[in-house]
């Protein structure tokens, strides 16, 4: 178990320029809801950061600020919005479009020429293993497959920054673990900076290079844990004592905040 101190973070920040960076971000909604308070967080290329925190603490809001959907009330955010992947809790597919039509949507909205679009779609579908289902409509797919379509759609952006808002929360355990493995493989090959919100501490530890714990609203960052396991990660690490210890520490940090 290691808790990254503020100094350690600063040191890392000086070696590689962060791809996504929050500097003293505060957010108060127009109705007075105080959602985020003094968020400082740097994520570099090749870092996978998960956020855990109690329900309603502002995790989704943090991602919305990162994506530019929501503006911070104060503080600064730096990132590359043209290479941003965002996967929501629901697959958010257009039900009237086929799988390939859905995967090609973002390139279409960004007016890429058709041949380039088609290549992106074919590549992304192959990457998530859905090339055989290109002509299916979402209705005919399982929940896991729909999430893969959503993932493929985000991949067409060639994301440098990849935001995930509890993407696998609605899936069964087996599908979830399989998608976790596929996601770490993607992370190894694509080397993006990831910010991943989840309710599952185990998922957070398994996927991440770093886990961030947030307080109840207004959301602040109250602890950070470095995860030492090497990539690509083997499913067995979930059953090692070291894994259990880290998960236990994160759980304790969360609990302490709730009392």
């Amino acid at each position: 178990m290691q808790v990254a101190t503020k100094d350690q973070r600063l040191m890392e920040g000086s070696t590689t320029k962060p791809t996504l960076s929050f500097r003293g971000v505060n957010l108060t909604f127009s109705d007075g809801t105080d959602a985020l308070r003094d968020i400082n967080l740097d994520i570099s290329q090749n870092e996978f950061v998960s956020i855990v925190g109690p329900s309603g603490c502002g995790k989704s809001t943090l991602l919305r600020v990162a994506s530019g959907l929501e503006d911070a009330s104060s503080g600064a955010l730096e990132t590359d919005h043209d290479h941003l992947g965002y996967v929501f809790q629901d697959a958010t597919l257009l039900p009237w479009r086929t799988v390939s039509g859905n995967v090609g949507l973002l390139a279409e909205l960004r007016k890429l020429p058709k041949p380039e679009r088609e290549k992106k779609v074919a590549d992304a579908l192959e990457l998530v293993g859905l090339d055989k289902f290109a002509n299916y409509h979402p209705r005919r797919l399982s929940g896991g497959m729909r999430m893969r379509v959503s993932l493929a759609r985000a991949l067409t952006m060639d994301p440098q920054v990849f935001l995930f808002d509890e993407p696998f929360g609605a899936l069964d355990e087996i599908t979830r673990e399989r998608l976790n493995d596929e996601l770490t493989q993607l992370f190894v090959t694509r080397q993006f900076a990831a910010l991943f919100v989840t309710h599952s501490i185990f998922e957070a530890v398994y996927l991440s290079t770093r886990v961030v714990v947030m307080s109840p609203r207004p959301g602040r960052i109250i602890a950070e844990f470095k995860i030492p396991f090497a990539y690509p990660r083997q499913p067995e690490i979930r059953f090692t004592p070291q894994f259990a210890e880290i998960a236990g520490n994160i759980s304790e940090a969360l609990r302490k905040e709730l009392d």
Partner: protein
Amino acid sequence: MTIIETVNSPISTSQSSPKRTNALKRINNIVPPLILFGVIIAIWEILSASLSGARKFLLPTPQSVLMQGILSPDAYTEILPSFVRTAALALAGLMVAIILGMIVAALMYRFKWLERASFPYLVALQAVPVLAIAPLMAVVFGYSFTAKGIIVVLIAFFPIPANFLLGLRSVDKGLIDLFRLNKASWWTRFFKLALPNALPQLLTGFRISAGLAVIGAIVGEEFFQAGVPGLGMRLLQYLDQVEYHRLYGALILSSLLGISFYTFFTRLSHRLLRNWHESVQA
């Protein structure tokens, strides 16, 4: 591209077996109404046979309605042109209602203040007994196709903007975020998101309005009782002339008109939505 092409074949082969179940389904859809049709004809037959001599004219037998009221040369040379005339009237009115209604809903979707300003009037229009303004129409437009058409439009209008607007507004919030995130313009959002999203509700509006348009056309004609005769005028005329065979013939044709409008829009809806909407079984 090659990937997509190789995928095509397994899908098309997998569709050949559902074809057989489709045929079965179709039989399932056709047989029960046919049986009911037989039952209704039988009841009709019994009822008309049970009427005493003096009252027999009130309900002629099914065959005599068919032979004398519709298929005899005298009858069909008169009733078929009327049928076509009423069908054209209902169709023209429906088309105008659809086009106007869609434009109105799209404007309300774009400009919220317009919805607030005009929706009360749309609702009020619902409440106005449209036939009450028919005499005014007659004064302004004469006993013309236009005058009757306006009645049809007024009667069939409301479901189009009401349903379309509901569909436009019921887009999933996550999808709106997705489009916003990718800098989609209002037009892009309208055509690629709101419009297809509203298609099921819009088609429901079409179906309701189609039925209303047929009713509006016939009732409008009954009211005017002048100009080129459609089914509505024939109905009253046959009633006056105690031509009950023809009266029932005209009634049957009126129902046929309503049924064919309804069927057309149901089919259209099924065809457009079958791949993705819950209302259509896979």
